[in-house]
């Protein structure tokens, strides 16, 4: 089966800013890929390049086995089989819901078109709203119309540009579930740009972490969270503290004690510690310097004897006060990752 999307060495710059700096990526058919990175990392440019709204300076883009952009060809967006769902939904305000969904079906027989529109409205549970105008719909409903519209022409690939960030927080989870459920059910290949780590980890088969126009890591949600490729990915995908690692007799250890992780090269390495991998117990050489109550847990910041700080998620009902002497250790079963200290920042 051909890949839905292949990027190879795609580059794009705006003046002196490199928004895409030699991007390589393969997306399989039916896969859902999340692209995440800080603002200005080039993730939106990536979408625009795939959609054909921007022309790459170099490299090639292949959609469903067809080269849509390289040094000699450029296919305009209307001739690519790529659907787009924007943050602001971008519904056509002067057209009804049904006409919005049917917009991309030009050239098909009228009956076929009507059937397809009905099918998609059914799929996003908006059959009742077919005759409404976009401004008469709620945010979540608009989002579903945008999805139905993008899916209608049966694109090889649907691109989502921060699709849920315009929704209220309490709505977001539900709409996200509905939308991604529909995407999965229709077997569509999707690329979702987001700046929300939880979102990326929860919806995607694979996560692409970008920074400054480059891809820092591509992997399953577990991989990018549990085995970050570098300090940037580690800190970007969740809270992380770093402690220097010493290796003696083949055993790696850090200030919290021996590490279960096999030590790699003897070069200087850091261990990545996530708050759930650190425990705190009363009495010891460390001191609690900060306590934040988060409801389900409490986040404590602990200053170790060396002066380094680590964070720890305390279970409910374990109270430590600022200034208290404690000792910090590694949670049972934790297998923190080692990184070359030189990589990352």
């Amino acid at each position, binding site marked *: 089966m051909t890949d839905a999307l292949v990027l190879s060495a795609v*580059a794009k*710059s705006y*003046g*002196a800013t*490199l928004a895409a*700096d*030699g991007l390589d990526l393969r997306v399989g058919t039916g896969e859902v890929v999340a692209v995440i990175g800080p603002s200005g990392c080039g993730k939106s440019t990536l979408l*625009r390049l795939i*959609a*054909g*709204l*921007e*022309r790459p*300076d*170099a490299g090639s883009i292949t959609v469903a086995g067809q080269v849509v952009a390289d040094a000699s060809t450029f296919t*305009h*967006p*209307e*001739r*690519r089989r*790529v*659907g*787009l769902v*924007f*943050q*602001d939904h*971008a519904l*056509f*305000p*002067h057209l009804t819901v049904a006409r919005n969904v049917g*917009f*991309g079906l*030009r050239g098909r027989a009228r009956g076929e078109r009507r059937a397809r529109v009905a099918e998609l409205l059914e799929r996003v549970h908006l059959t009742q709203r077919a005759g409404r105008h976009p401004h008469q719909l709620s945010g979540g409903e608009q989002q579903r119309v*945008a999805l139905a*519209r*993008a899916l*209608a*022409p049966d*694109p090889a690939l649907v691109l989502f*540009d921060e699709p849920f960030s315009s929704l209220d927080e309490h709505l977001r989870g539900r709409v996200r579930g509905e939308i991604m459920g529909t995407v999965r059910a229709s077997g569509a290949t999707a690329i979702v740009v987001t700046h929300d780590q939880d979102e990326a980890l929860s919806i995607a088969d694979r996560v692409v972490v970008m920074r400054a*126009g*480059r891809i820092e890591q591509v992997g399953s949600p577990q991989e990018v969270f549990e085995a970050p490729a*570098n*300090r*940037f990915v580690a800190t970007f995908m969740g809270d992380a503290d770093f402690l220097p690692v010493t290796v003696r007799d083949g055993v790696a250890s850090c200030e919290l004690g021996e590490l279960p992780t096999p030590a790699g090269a003897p070069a200087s390495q850091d261990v990545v510690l996530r708050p759930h991998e650190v425990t705190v117990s009363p009495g010891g050489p460390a001191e609690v310097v900060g306590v934040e109550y988060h409801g389900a847990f409490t986040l404590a910041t602990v200053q170790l004897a060396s002066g380094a700080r680590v964070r720890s998620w305390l279970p409910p009902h374990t109270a430590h006060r600022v200034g208290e002497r404690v000792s910090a250790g590694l949670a049972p079963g934790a297998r923190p990752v080692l990184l070359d200290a030189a*990589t*990352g*920042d």
Partner: protein
Amino acid sequence: MSREPAPRGVRRRLVGEGRWAWSALAVLIGVLVAAPILAVVVDGLVNAGSAELPDDVGAMTLTSIWLLLGVGIGTSVLGIGLAWLTTAFDFPLRRLLSWALVLPLAMPAYILGFVFLSTFDVAGPVQTALRDWFGDDVWVPQVRSLGGAVVVMSLTLYPYVYLMARAAFTEQSARTFDAARSLGAGRARTFWQVLLPLARPSLAAGLALVMMETLTDFATVQYFNVQTVSVGVYLVWKGSYDLHSATQLAALVLLFAVAVLAGERMLRGGARFHQRGGSGEGVARVPLHGVRGWLACLAGLVVLGAAFVLPVLRLATWAWAGRDGSGTDPLDARFGDYIANSVSLALVVAVICVLLAVVIGHAQRLGGGALVRAAGQATTFGYAVPGAVVGIGVLIVMAWSDDALVALGVEGGTGLLITGSVIGILIAQVVRFVAPAHQAVDASYAKIAPSITGSALSLGAGPTRVLARVHLPQLRSGVTVAAVLVLVDVIKELPLVLLLRPFGFTTVSVWVYQLARENFWEKAALPALLIVVLALVPVFVLIRGREVRGRNLP
């Protein structure tokens, strides 16, 4: 982790991502609109020194400078003063006055000019009354003079400054004002030292508009026997049909325009703070009680009365009194012809301007790149440059294309005798008024999110279908505003038509001017009223809260 970006030649994106056909069309429009102005520069430079100039060109230059200075001071005093009065104080009729003071925008100077003369000149009611009271040797200032022209033009042009100043004063947050006052500055000192300097960029823009309008005029000033450089252009062309000499003078007018723009830049300085978008509540208004309140009210009423209400009443009286045959018979066949001329000219120009504006807007939306953006900018030249320059420029371009066609073997060239054809007026009007159309359409385009365009394209609609099915339905209000603005502007426009009209072609505005110059006030009243009423339409559009139709000076 900082990796060096791979050394890669950054491609210059002159042409951008857009569609070449649309981009090329937009660039072509930009070039055509800018061509007349460039033509004046080129021809002016090529023939510098060789063309014959009128002897009194030095005096004309001086007169122009004095007129600009006088009108600049007059509009500043009226505009800033009234804006401060209506934003910082509360007094009887303030709300009414604050919008009504914009109405004089609808009163063309060439109309207010003759009403003013008919009232204050030797034979007018004011001087007659003075002579009755004080005897025949009572001294009155000469009305047909530079001073008279300054008064009339200040009264018709001050709304530009007033609008800009008002916007600037209300944009600034009350907190700026409060902060200054809490630091011990009095109200007056705060005005001079904080508010006025903050408003300076806006005021500079308003004043630049005033100066451009002043430079454009060569009709009104002729009532007052004031010979500016623009008048010189008109007289030289109409007197001798010597295009090179007229161009030399037009280039001089262009120099004035450039000086005005440079002055605006200087006054504005690096300052961009007027765009900071303050919270908009303006300063807290201080109520003026008793006599002071009524004095403030009176000040507003006097200006409004002198610039708009009284002249309109006077015109209405004349039009009414003219029923017996001394005035224009509304059913007069000539009146009908002239209205038909004005309206058909205006319709054609409006349609062309809106079409051009939509093409440029669409090309920009499709991602035209720097070249298309420049083309969009170029369309504003015609509006920013005095009418005499545009008019002469169009003549040069037409002469060139005639020469080119003859050289190519086409007998008689375009057949458009440059000494006059309606085509010339048409082109000149399009060049002049495509800018307001562009701005109105552009403002509408700005309200269509780029994601809408992106979505439509990705759903398989080509650029033309996107324009027809997605953009145009959403541009309707912008297109309507653009068409209305251009329609009224064309009907009001006088200098360009005067300069370029073929023998026998008369519009309503030209007719008013001719009648007024021959002191047929009663006859001129009805067509003049018609123009004022039409010109009120865009003023009401503006008052209704749309943005100040800024002449976006490049």
